[in-house]
């Protein structure tokens, strides 16, 4: 059996002296969708951020491809960053409000390759078609697009980096049912094409049951189990 893509061992995060969670173990295999459920305030969003080091965990290890992310320096971390991406609950705040959405989509790749954003988008034409964004929508500012459109734009931004793991924190809880189905369906298609793994954080067990291979529950400050979904 190949080693898991991501292996979280004994992760702990304190705010001040209060532990948010402790002793969290979690593995995610390549191409797998793992659900993470729990009440609001159970620390599931914080766990997602700690894995990506958007917040610094207090203790524990997070192995990605055998290397501990928490021990990496800034340089090494920036090398693996593109592999590990995140999608947020509030799509309307995921893009810089002062920049056209198209620029936001092109920015990561443009930064890495030094190409102009317009060129990058030409190269991403296929991905943009896949997520269903029109040219005129790319010139708009975030507040001019709907939540569903922004979430699809976010998928385009994230997938332009060809990530191996995407942590999606309540990606559809602010969206309508029909749009939710669209976004989740799109995530599924992208997974089939790229073999990406998802950690899907959601309070909606129905959604998790419908799309996840396994579901882990966060309760009493730790992850309890990961069942077959």
């Amino acid at each position, binding site marked *: 059996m190949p080693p898991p893509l991501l292996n979280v061992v004994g992760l702990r995060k304190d705010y001040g002296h209060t532990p948010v969670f402790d002793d969290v173990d979690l593995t995610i295999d390549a191409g797998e969708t793992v659900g993470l459920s729990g*009440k*609001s305030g159970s620390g599931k969003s914080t766990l997602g951020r700690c894995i990506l080091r958007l917040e610094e965990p207090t203790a524990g290890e997070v192995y990605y491809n055998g290397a501990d992310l928490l021990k990496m320096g800034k340089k090494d971390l920036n090398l693996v960053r593109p592999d590990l991406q995140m999608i947020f*609950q509030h799509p309307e705040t995921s893009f810089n409000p002062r920049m056209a959405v198209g620029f936001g989509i092109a920015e990561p790749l443009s930064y890495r390759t030094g190409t102009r954003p317009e060129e990058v988008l030409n190269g991403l034409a296929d991905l943009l078609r896949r997520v*269903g964004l029109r040219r005129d929508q790319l010139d708009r500012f975030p507040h001019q697009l*709907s*939540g*569903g459109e922004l979430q699809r734009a976010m998928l385009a931004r994230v997938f332009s980096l060809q990530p191996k793991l995407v942590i999606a924190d309540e990606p559809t*809880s*602010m969206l*309508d*049912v*029909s*749009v*939710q*189905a*669209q976004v*989740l*369906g799109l995530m599924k298609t992208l997974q089939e094409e790229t073999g990406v793994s998802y950690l899907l954080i959601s*309070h*909606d*067990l*129905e*959604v998790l*049951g*419908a*799309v996840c291979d396994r579901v882990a529950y966060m309760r009493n400050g730790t992850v309890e189990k990961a069942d077959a979904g």
Partner: protein
Amino acid sequence: MSLLEVSGLNVTFPTQEGNVRASSDVSFSLDEGEVLGLIGESGSGKSVIGLSILRLLPAYAEVSGRILFRGIDLAVIPEKDLARIRGREIALLPQNPVLSLNPLMQNGRQLAEVYEQTGDDRVVARKKTLDLLQAFSFHDPAGVYTLYPHQLSGGMRQRLTAGIALSYHPSLLIADEPTRGLDRDVREKTIDLFRKIEDEFGTAILLITHDLDLAERLCSRIVVMYAGEIVEIGPAGEVFEDPAHPYTQGLLRARPRNGLVPLPGMSPGLSALPPGCRFAGRCGRADVSCTTTHPTVSGCGPGRCARCRHLF
């Protein structure tokens, strides 16, 4: 006579990019004590309807049509008279309980203030507040009175805002997306709260939501909106069991329990509506005449109607 009767409501926002027709020829009615669900996706114009009932739309919105509340047309009465109806007869339950409570004011004071506004003295206002808190299943009203909003749980805050909205025992409560972004526990509590409002206060509720489960569990009748117009009206059980309009059918198929099947395509923009059926571009049953003739709402069973040519 119905409590609320909206007929031929048109709302247009003139913008630089043309007229945005947020609501086109919307007509429905709501009886005393009834819970009516207004469902549809964002951009379908459902929130605009709630706001136009209370005349809270921005001034540049062009509104036409009649909004009869107990026979009084809210669209034309003077602002002074409307102010008397707003809040007392018709209350709005805000979407975000956290943002609508004053974080620096004791919970009880926020409620008592409403009573004091109408001339009750502090003692009477306090007494009324405690009664209301009791009615909203706060076990320790006196204790909750002196706490501050951040010391309450999400569900408690929601009950508190509902308490403030219902402090005058309005006959109509407009709730706009009360469950958006809430987690499961708080959502369950919201549902209990609405049942309670319905049972104990007898308040009619206009529930504007995209949360189909919420609508299914609470509402007696459902109005389905698509691209600014009503596409289907019917008793909740029947609409969810056997949806008539292809859009409603598609919407229900998109629920996680029905397999998360997305509707193909996108809604038409409200500033560039197609001449024919607005759903035709995404509808499996659409034919040529669907794209040219705009369908009307017609009855399709007792108490049911839908806007689709293929049903008749």
